[in-house]
């Protein structure tokens, strides 16, 4: 049976067919759908872990105990998970451990364009890269076999265009595989004396794999009439096949280790060799360091995604038609009725500096709110703010606030909070609790009281947790109540010590069946105050007056609260 599957779903299907017992992840675009899909199978244990390091440790535990495990994350999540992973590469596995990591060339939804292929190299972990959904499934199954055969974790590397494109996949039955758990201190306890011995094993394994990789048929040569050979992998392979149908292609299935001898043979049959790859010159440099002469990044550049169109332009000199339209940009915005909007309105009004974090609320940095002033990585807001206070002093902190979402706080904000209290900080932290992981599509987390399968579980009590960390000044506010929001922030920000304000209201999109009343504006005085909210449901007419788009409005009524002339009212027209 064939199914049209997302690349992410195909990885999950492969893991399912390979008899995976445990799947763990923290949601991160474009990797989220892997674990979401796995959660639909009853014979697999799946979970949203609180962060990628924890997910990796869960997967390692499953693998040590004898159950095949899949851990998934986006590229920046791999940084979080790297610590346990580098050491598990030393111990090796019991049952297979496969790590699916999704890179985001072009940064469709990420803070950087990091190239995960270097993690294969530096952690000594083999890495496979599929070029469509069928390969995503096949390579995942193969990765489990490799993992056990070579006693190593194995990476499946995706990019956004593989993770988030759909193509046909042949579905097969699940195979049940289980290994016995055996205690093995020399293998699994990485105290230095044991780790030194394992490091020797890692190098043995790597030499064996570097030689064997030349005979695996997932690295293949496709002949062509042209004398210029192309080396590529992943999504780029599809662009190359479309743009350059006559060129001989070396299609890599392994991106680490590279099949150097097979590549050398390919090179000897071509007059010229071009590596086409997104992001860093990873394959290019590896080949050059092996004395194989290639061209690459001087042609393709270091930024963004490729496409068949770009490849035609680079290799064939084909002229790309550039968009000639001068049009209003349409950046993403916080939804009409978003619970974060009022918070940023107040931050802006009070002229505070806000150290932000990763989530829907990151959009607070955009016009017209312009009220989030830094964003580094998951969980950084609190420790960044603490660092600012230590550099600039208490008075600076009275104009500075950390802004972090509920899921992000659990992911890696908690440690920053404990650190700030421990180190006698004087900062104010806003936890924007919209009771979900909004940006990645509403996954539950420990604060929601639901598991990935929507089973009831303990609900993390943020107030009690924050107090237990040593914070005495804790308030809970409703972010739709602008007066309360403003007065509580003003009250806390001048206090010494660490203050936490929890702004709590569920994401407006959580209830998909909700029907809303709408706001209506009469006798608009054209003062433009409501436009400062940056609400997509408010529109400015030609004459400068303002109207509400009833198809978008959710009657949060923030516009009513900022209107000085009482021109806004709610109308009961729930749709």
């Amino acid at each position: 049976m064939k199914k049209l599957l997302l690349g992410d779903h195909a990885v999950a299907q492969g893991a399912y067919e390979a008899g995976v017992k445990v799947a763990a992840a923290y949601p991160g675009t474009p990797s989220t759908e892997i674990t979401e899909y796995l959660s639909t199978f009853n014979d697999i244990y799946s979970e949203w872990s609180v962060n990628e390091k924890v997910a990796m440790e869960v997967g390692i535990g499953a693998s040590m105990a004898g159950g095949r495990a899949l851990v998934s994350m986006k590229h920046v999540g791999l940084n979080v998970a790297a610590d346990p992973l580098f050491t598990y590469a030393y111990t090796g596995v019991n049952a297979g451990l496969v790590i699916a990591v999704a890179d985001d060339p072009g940064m469709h939804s990420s803070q950087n364009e990091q190239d995960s292929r270097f993690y294969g190299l530096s952690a000594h972990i083999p890495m496979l890269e599929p070029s469509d959904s069928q390969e995503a499934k096949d390579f995942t199954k193969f990765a489990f076999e490799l993992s056990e055969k070579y006693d190593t974790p194995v990476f499946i590397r995706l990019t956004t265009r593989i993770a988030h494109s759909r193509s046909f996949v042949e579905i097969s039955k699940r195979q049940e595989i289980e290994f016995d758990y055996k205690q093995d201190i020399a293998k699994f306890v990485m105290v230095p004396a044991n780790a030194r011995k394992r490091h020797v094993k890692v190098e043995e394994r790597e030499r064996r794999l570097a030689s064997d990789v030349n005979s695996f048929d997932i690295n293949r040569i496709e002949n062509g009439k042209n004398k210029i050979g192309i080396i590529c992998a992943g999504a780029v392979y599809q662009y190359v096949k479309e743009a350059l149908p006559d060129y001989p292609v070396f299609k890599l299935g392994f991106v680490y280790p590279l099949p150097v001898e097979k590549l050398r043979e390919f090179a000897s049959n071509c007059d010229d060799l071009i590596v086409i790859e997104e992001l860093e010159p990873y394959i290019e440099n590896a080949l050059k360091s092996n004395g194989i002469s290639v061209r690459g990044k001087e042609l393709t550049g270091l930024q963004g995604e490729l496409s068949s169109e770009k490849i035609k332009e680079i290799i064939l000199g084909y002229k790309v038609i550039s968009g000639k339209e001068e049009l209003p940009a349409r950046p993403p915005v916080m939804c009409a009725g978003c619970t974060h909007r009022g918070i940023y309105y107040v931050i802006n009004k009070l002229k505070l500096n806000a150290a932000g974090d990763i989530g829907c609320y990151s959009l607070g940095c955009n016009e017209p709110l312009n009220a989030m002033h830094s964003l580094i990585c998951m969980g950084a807001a609190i420790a960044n703010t603490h660092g600012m206070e230590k550099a600039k002093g208490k008075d600076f902190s009275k104009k500075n606030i950390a802004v972090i979402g509920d899921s992000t706080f659990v992911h890696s904000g908690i440690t920053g909070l404990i650190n700030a209290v421990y180190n006698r900080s004087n900062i104010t932290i806003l936890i924007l609790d919209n009771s979900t992981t909004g940006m990645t599509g509403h996954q539950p987390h420990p604060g929601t009281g639901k598991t990935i399968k929507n089973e009831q579980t303990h609900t993390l009590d943020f107030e009690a947790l924050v107090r237990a960390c040593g914070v005495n000044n804790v308030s809970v506010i409703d972010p739709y109540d602008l007066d309360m929001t403003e007065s509580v922030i003003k009250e806390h920000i001048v206090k010494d010590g660490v203050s936490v304000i929890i702004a709590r209201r569920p994401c407006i999109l959580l209830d998909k069946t909700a029907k809303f009343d709408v706001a209506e504006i009469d006798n608009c005085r054209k003062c433009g105050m409501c436009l400062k909210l940056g609400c997509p449901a408010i529109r400015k007419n030609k004459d400068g007056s303002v109207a509400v788009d009833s198809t978008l409005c959710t009657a949060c009524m923030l516009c009513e609260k900022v209107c000085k002339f009482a021109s806004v009212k709610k109308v009961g027209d729930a749709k």
Partner: protein
Amino acid sequence: MNINILIVGVGGQGTLLASKILGNYATLINKDCKLSEVHGMSQRGGSVVTYVRISDKVYSPLIDKKNADVILAFEELEALRWADYIKDGGMIIINKQNLYPMPVITGKVDYPADIYERVGGYGAQIRNIDALEIAMKLGDLRTVNVAVLGFCAVLLKFDREKFKEAIKNSVPASTFDINLRAFEEGEKRA
């Protein structure tokens, strides 16, 4: 059937579901198909594009500029933003809806008044549907996408029964009836 369809609109308008339905239709007519979708933050009211490619063999999940046979635009400004993807003699189907982007809301720039004139410059056939009106009449704003598909299915001479089956396979069972009505209303406008 070999066809490249670009679905463009604003995050939240249901372009993703529309592409899934077209992909499911490809399954039912035994063609190869690739879809490239938009997930994550770019969906939050941003400009979105999903690519649908149906053919005997499809390599790239993306469509090159001037290579789309059809553009389904769920919003007028987005029709113009992506118009340079249309092939000479292709068809641009535009839903008569305006959603103002933030720079327009804040008054920095105007929403263009001459969209149809400019889209006309790309040499494509332009067809119009007011799918929002259909969705409002049906009492569910989320059916705009399927109404546009009904209109498009007639113009592109899709197999009607197979297309309805594709909708059935792609939407939650509880919403099939209303989506079917939206589809039929869309068909009537063609």
